[in-house]
């Protein structure tokens, strides 16, 4: 299971000569820690990392705000056209992202958002899945709690902020984690939405690095390792929420 990852690590620590041995050398003689530094400096990885961080951060925060507001509205507020709107939004889950690729590309180009942060961050915000998860979470809070707050004179917004939010915190974390992972690993959209090195995210940058690194596999493996580290850290710290959240979606509709 972890064999590929282990192999990646050991290769990253080999010299260029050791990496290209046939049959392959299993363990490097001396651990070439400087490979990590060389790989990092061979392409503007710092820029790529910063872009990935920025995009992931912006998308996740915005997503959480947008989804929480919408989920609360669907869960707790009464309004005209609620059911129709909900079903309409559900249909967006059926649409594959790949289908939206082309027109979104055309849209951001016409708005002059191509190769900008706006073009990278805004389109992925159109996501109803998080709203669904949060709506479920809001609905699982007993009505009595909300009514108690209302009796104390809280308006809708206050109810959301003081009562709803703290109680759905685990779901918020799950949604946040899922979004961070999705943004960080997104490949197709950043590939299409950016052109210059300046705005590339890590996955796209890593891929373009392979063209430059050629057969320097030890550098490639070092770069791959580095690319994985941030997300692995996130994963290790948020594992519990992630798996719980995913288990729940596997069950329900």
């Amino acid at each position: 299971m972890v064999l590929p990852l282990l192999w990646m690590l050991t290769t990253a620590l080999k010299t260029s000569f050791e990496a290209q041995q046939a049959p392959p050398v299993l363990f490097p003689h001396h651990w070439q820690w400087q490979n990590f530094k060389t790989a990092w400096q061979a392409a503007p990885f710092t820029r790529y990392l910063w872009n990935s961080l920025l995009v992931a951060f912006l998308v996740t925060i915005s997503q959480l705000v947008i989804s929480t507001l919408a989920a609360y509205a669907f869960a707790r507020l009464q309004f005209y056209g609620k059911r129709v709107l909900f079903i309409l939004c559900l249909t967006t889950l059926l649409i594959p992202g790949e289908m939206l690729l082309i027109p979104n590309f055309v849209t951001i180009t016409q708005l002059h958002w191509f190769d900008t942060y706006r073009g990278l961050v805004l389109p992925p915000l159109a996501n109803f899945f998080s709203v669904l998860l949060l709506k479920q979470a809001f609905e699982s809070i007993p009505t009595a709690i909300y009514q108690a707050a209302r009796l104390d004179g809280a308006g809708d917004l206050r109810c959301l902020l003081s009562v709803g939010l703290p109680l759905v915190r685990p779901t918020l974390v799950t949604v946040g984690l899922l979004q961070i992972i999705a943004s960080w690993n997104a490949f197709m959209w950043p590939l299409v939405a950016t052109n210059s090195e300046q705005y590339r995210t890590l996955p796209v940058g890593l891929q373009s690095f392979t063209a430059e690194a050629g057969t320097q596999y030890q550098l490639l493996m070092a770069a791959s390792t580095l690319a994985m580290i941030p997300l692995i850290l996130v994963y290790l710290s948020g594992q519990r929420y992630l798996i719980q959240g995913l288990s729940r979606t596997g069950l329900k509709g």
Partner: protein
Amino acid sequence: MKQQPTLRGSLKAYLYLLPLLTALGLFTFYPMVKTLLMSLYTRYDFLTDHVSQIGWANFQFIWHDPDFHLALKNTVVFALWVVPLATILAMGCALLLARNPWFNRLLRTIYFLPFVTSTVAISLVWNWLFQTDYGLINAMRVWLGQTRIAWLSDPHYAMVALISLVLWKSLGVNILVMLVGISRIDQRLYQVAILDEASPHQRFWHLTLPLLKPTIALVILMTTIASFKLFNEVFVLFQGSPGPGKSTLTVVFYLYDKFYVAYQYGIAAAASVVLFVILLTLTALQWWVRQGAWHD
């Protein structure tokens, strides 16, 4: 006590919904319509946004394009291999893990890890593993007395390489879903079965398997839909090409190629409409199966 909607209440609610609806409207509904329209543009100048001709020619082109047929065939072949393999592997692992919850918790970090790793980074690692001369996989073959295989440049084996990569990456998630399904089975049923002196073999075939059917169906459909959307792994594993001799050209890759490389927007749009119809059918199946699951 349910309140009735009021005008004031509705306006307030729509204010809450405004950001979501703006995002969805701009980047989902509008593009959806635009794609459908674009699939009918037979002459489109992107730079001036001028449509000179419309018609069904794009769809006709796809219908006759051998590349599209190849893409469809490859995608279907891929799905036919991956779906059963992924499901059976996941089920097997999940059943084993379900017996030892302690062991499961220990391994969970590991088997779920591929889910969070970047597809690009992982595909690069597998590219490295499958290298003809320096790859670990060929090294093991040689060690076992077999010949080397040119995984990434031989059209016959490229698909195998791709399938291995995808199976490895998706195993963790599928195991998780299976485990959830297994946990829903009432343990008392097993106790009764044991009292009735049912063999493990019988317990599996007559108790576990039927009760897991909705979960199995779910994994099958999740994997199928994901198979049809395959792009990242192909792009990185074969470094931007659709595999040796286009042997791993998938539908989405065809879409990407026509759109970003050949600038044939109309044709790409038409291809995405076809993809959408296929996915819609599969997803409708998925919902229908879920309905069946609730009745259990």
